[in-house]
């Protein structure tokens, strides 16, 4: 089995970490062997901590000349056998889009953390934003699916970073941790358990590394130096990596598998939490930091005997279509508050036929619980 239990590198116990530090420690627990990054607010603290801690645990740290080089070197390291990660924010994430596409096409496991800040462009570097959700799904050309997670706490930045490595290794796909400045710079208690469960990429010497007839659609992945004479290319290729740039059947077969290996597993990949939904007739669908405010608001309304509930998306992509659709058929109204001009709300309306109301705030601040109470008050 590719799953294994190993000790968390940190001694078990409670720690008081910033989100940036938790990302670094999560990567170490996941046995990340290669990190490349470039300084950018609000994740420079991750880069700095990794530069010290990777030396201590014997992993490789590189500060590259830009974010393009960072992601590309991660792909190279991943094929050399490393679990690889880069951490950035909006402008760096934009630069990485072509590299994400190469990782998708070459089925390279890599983890990218994007602590979103107020945009567009340089925007407000030290303040929060949530404008990169659709970019995570559609930013690189070609439209193939990736996996994107949305942590709401420092604990979850630790846990989701580990989870991101496991998903990347399991599905051979880039996994994006769509953090936010507000959690990257937050300090909270993080509990580190004795053990951590990790997934290592499957190996099968001699098997084609870019094709499989198995149902899961994920081929085994050898590394450079293992004598497999690998042909890794971002061009359309057959199961052995031979370039096939004018063969319609191969392009279709490859893209269909890249699509299905994620989308056919979406029930297994997507995680969510529901709060007070059983008897709710109004609900909030939210993710990231906004869910903290929403939960506060819901609990206040419950004190007033209002039947309000909440669905928190821990996975943004693939989208949790089934639970959203199911919930949408039970409640009367849904509020989708976001730190952007409306991104996830568009997905919600694909699967919900009833009333879906968007609340958008782009001012460099998190959405206040009172704001959500106010918005829900419009329904009551």
């Amino acid at each position, binding site marked *: 089995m590719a799953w294994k239990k190993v000790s968390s590198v940190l001694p078990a116990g409670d720690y008081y970490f910033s989100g940036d530090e938790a990302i670094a420690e999560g990567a170490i627990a996941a046995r990340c062997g*290669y990190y490349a990054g470039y300084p950018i607010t609000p994740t420079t603290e991750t880069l700095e901590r990794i530069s010290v801690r990777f030396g201590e645990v014997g992993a490789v740290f590189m500060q590259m000349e830009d974010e393009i080089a960072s992601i*590309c070197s991660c792909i190279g390291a991943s094929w050399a056998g490393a679990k690889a990660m880069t951490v950035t924010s909006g402008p760096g994430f934009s630069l990485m889009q072509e590299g994400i596409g190469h990782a998708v096409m070459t089925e390279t496991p890599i983890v990218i953390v994007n602590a979103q800040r107020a945009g567009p462009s340089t925007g407000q570097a030290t303040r929060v934003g949530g404008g990169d959700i659709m970019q995570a799904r559609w930013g690189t050309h070609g439209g193939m699916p990736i996996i994107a997670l949305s942590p709401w706490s420092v604990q979850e930045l630790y846990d989701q970073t580990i989870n991101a490595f496991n998903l990347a290794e399991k599905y051979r796909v880039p996994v994006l941790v769509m953090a936010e400045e507000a959690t990257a710079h937050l300090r909270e208690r993080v509990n580190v358990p004795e053990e951590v469960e990790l997934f290592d990429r499957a190996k099968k010497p001699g098997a084609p590394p870019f094709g499989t007839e198995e149902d899961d659609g994920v081929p085994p992945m050898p590394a450079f130096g293992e004598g497999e004479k690998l042909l890794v290319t971002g061009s359309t290729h057959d199961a052995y990596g031979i370039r096939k740039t004018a063969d319609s059947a191969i392009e279709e077969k490859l893209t269909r598998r890249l699509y299905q290996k994620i989308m056919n597993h979406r029930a297994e990949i997507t995680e969510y939490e529901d709060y007070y939904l059983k008897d709710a007739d109004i609900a909030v669908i939210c993710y990231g930091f906004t869910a903290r405010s929403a939960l506060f608001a819901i609990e206040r309304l419950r004190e007033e005997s209002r039947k309000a509930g909440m669905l928190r998306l821990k996975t943004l992509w693939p989208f949790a279509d089934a639970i959203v659709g199911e919930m949408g058929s039970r409640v009367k109204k849904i509020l989708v508050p976001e730190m952007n001009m409306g991104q996830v709300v568009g997905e919600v309306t694909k699967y919900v036929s009833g009333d879906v109301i968007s609340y958008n705030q782009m001012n460099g601040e998190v959405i206040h619980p009172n704001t959500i109470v106010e918005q829900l008050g419009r329904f009551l």
Partner: protein
Amino acid sequence: MAKDLKQYLRPGVTTPFCPGCGHRTLLRLILRAIDELEIDIDGMLFVSGIGCAGWIPSPHFNADTLHTLHGRAIAFATGAKMFNPRLKTMVISGDGDLVDIGGNHLIHAARRNIDLTVICANNMNYGQTGGQVCSTTPKGAVTRTTHGGSPYRPLDLCKLVSAAGAVYVARYLVTQGSVVVDSIKKALQIEGFSFIEVISPCPTQFGRQNRLDTPREAFEFVERMCITKEDAEGLSPAELEGKIVTGEFSNGTG
């Protein structure tokens, strides 16, 4: 000495290069150097970018190959090499790829002295997209985007990489067979960042637009521009205008 280098080629792969292209010759010279050094090709990694020269190792070489994004071959190679230093890593790509779009990675890998052997096949234009101007196009040369002749001075790649700190830097013409082989052998044996620019004419795109009607004329065109480092000594900048100096510019001992 004609050697059978077929053992290094991936079975069943045919060459995509145009008749008269220098890259086919360069492919053979690289394999000759590896063969003469008796390096186990299974322990090597070949990284290339986008463009005609990116196809020299991928898919031809029967070894681990990584065909990357345009301009980023050196960044990919850096990650692989830093994680697994046992991989003897060679980057083979074109001038447009390594220097124009990817120049930042080139100078920083040289500055960091990453243990890579970089071979830049300089064909003086963007061959694969049909022959547009690039940073190495000679001043006055006609391309698909400089119909009246390029108004720009070409970049001296070896000066650039030397200034960035590469430990071994050399430039030769692809027709200087055994000299190129010896240079590649040296570069492969030197620890640290080495860079060899091999002038590899493009008769199909560059030649056609500059009234060089045969591959032979395309080769003679660059041969006329070349001057050895020894012959160039003492010449004034005006006398060296339009010349390409060949030789070793850093040899790993300095």
